[in-house]
């Protein structure tokens, strides 16, 4: 069934978009990530203008992560204090990111920068996660312990001042690295147009040593707030949010996210990390291939506005 999108100005197959939303929603519910790095390329692939895709995906991610966050909240798998402190850093990071975005665009190489940062971040993060997950799995098979090491010798982060007790996560941690992580995620999110969940989750696990039980729920809260903010910003500045497209994606997305969240609880932590690592790595490699291989068409056209009536 074809449906005409009022802002994107093209007709799309409603079931195709619904299925895409559900698939990405499943992944996002399972791993506690927004899924923007999957959804945006998919939308561009079916012919939606990149700017409209980025703007509309933000609200889709907001819906997915809200429904996910509610179910994690019920399971007491969200650390509100941690989320709040992450957000304070995230807000500053987003503002810095928007400023950098504008600066890069004035230099005329924004697309390349986005492409390169996708490649570097996705392959690095994906590779590290897949490697770590694989190692943990092998250790289990050999009968070793799989609990994340929390050595007291992990010096410098625990030596920082302004320590705070995060009750839900059962950790005692300085707020400085927490704010820093939020800042980095906010910055990356604004520049690359993604929620940043797939970077946030490993940063929280490996750098902040947040237990796996609260990582996903808490990262969803951060994603939710930044994506709501991004939706508003895109709607006010570019007028490119396609509400009809967003609604179809949302309905598919929240449904998928529910099943994804349940599936995620059944899968062992290290398997989950390996799967997410491989997925992120695959998307990263796809972007790398696109940069290295000679494109089918060397030329591209872009409308730069000024449409006269």
């Amino acid at each position, binding site marked *: 069934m074809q449906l*005409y999108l009022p802002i994107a100005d093209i007709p799309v197959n409603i079931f195709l978009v619904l299925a895409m939303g559900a698939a990405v929603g499943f992944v996002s519910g399972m791993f506690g990530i927004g899924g923007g790095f999957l959804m945006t390329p998919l939308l561009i692939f079916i012919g939606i203008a990149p700017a409209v895709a980025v703007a509309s995906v933000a609200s889709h991610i907001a819906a997915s992560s*809200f429904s996910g966050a509610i179910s994690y909240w019920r399971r007491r798998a969200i650390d509100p204090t941690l989320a709040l402190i992450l957000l304070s850093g995230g807000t500053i990071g987003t503002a810095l990111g928007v400023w950098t975005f504008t600066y890069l665009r004035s230099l005329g190489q924004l697309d390349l920068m986005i492409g390169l940062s996708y490649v570097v971040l996705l392959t690095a993060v994906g590779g590290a996660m897949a490697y770590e997950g694989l190692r943990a799995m092998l250790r289990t098979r050999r009968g070793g312990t799989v609990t994340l090491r929390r050595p007291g010798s992990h010096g410098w982060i625990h030596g920082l001042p302004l320590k705070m007790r995060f009750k839900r996560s059962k950790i005692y941690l300085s707020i400085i690295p927490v704010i820093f992580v939020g800042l980095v995620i906010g910055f990356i999110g604004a520049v690359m147009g993604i929620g940043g969940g797939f970077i946030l989750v490993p940063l929280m696990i490996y750098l902040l040593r947040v237990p796996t039980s609260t990582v996903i729920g808490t990262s969803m809260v951060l994603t939710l707030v930044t994506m709501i903010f991004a939706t508003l910003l895109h709607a006010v500045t570019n007028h490119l949010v396609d509400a009809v497209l967003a609604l179809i994606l949302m309905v598919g997305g929240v449904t998928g996210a529910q099943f994804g969240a349940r599936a995620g609880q059944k899968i062992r932590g290290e398997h989950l990390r390996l799967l997410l690592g491989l997925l992120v790595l695959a998307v990263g490699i796809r972007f790398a291939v696109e940069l290295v291989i000679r494109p089918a068409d060397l030329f591209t056209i872009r409308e730069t506005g000024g449409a006269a009536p």
Partner: protein
Amino acid sequence: MTARALLVLAGLLVAIPAASPACAERLIVSVSNHRVTVTPNYSGEELVLFGSVERDADTPPGRTNYDLVVSVIGPRADMVTRRKERRFGIWINSDYRQFLQVPTYLALFSNRPFDQIASPEVQRRQQLGLNNVLLMQRVGPDYADVVPNDVFRSAFVRLRIEHGLYREETSTVTFLTPTLFRTTIPLPAEVPIGTYNVEIKLFTDGALVTKADTAFEIVKVGFEQFVANTARQNGLAYGLVTAAMALMTGWMASIVFRRD
């Protein structure tokens, strides 16, 4: 077709007098729909252009070797064509050309190939064929249309053709009688919204005899128009509603799928 039927048909058409009254012929044309509405199930459309060549006392008797060229010109916009080049092992956008106020949709139809209709000189002057249409470019500080085989110009035209937004067909105008003609105007699904001007030029023996203009518009109506207008005029309210919609959808899902 009888003369009576022709007369009835001519009466139905919207008469647009030719620009120069000195000419012996007049063109009377009309499109099947002057207002194409974009509804939720819109997925492209095809318009039909009808017309007839009106002859009067000054027309040389026995002159029936008419040629017709129809140009459909969509709303204009600025566009940039970029070329990728390999630098340090990766493909990046290196060079670009800016096209100023060029048509977003452009269709050129005729009853036979342009080089049979008129001499190269006339083709260029009357902008017959995609190679001869004026596409203004900004090259550094200068404004100019370059030669047709310029790489950026030909890449631009080729990409527009691939999307069905530019087209050149030299056999679609058909003469039903020596003076009555029709052609179809295909509009792809991703057709730009706006006003489309249609120019009809009548040639005989390689020279322009007369021309006529008409227009149609492609508009969004109802829900589509409401959404597009709100997004443009009340960005904040639109964003808030979308954000609220996202939260509602997420909340609803968590209720629907609640298991405990």
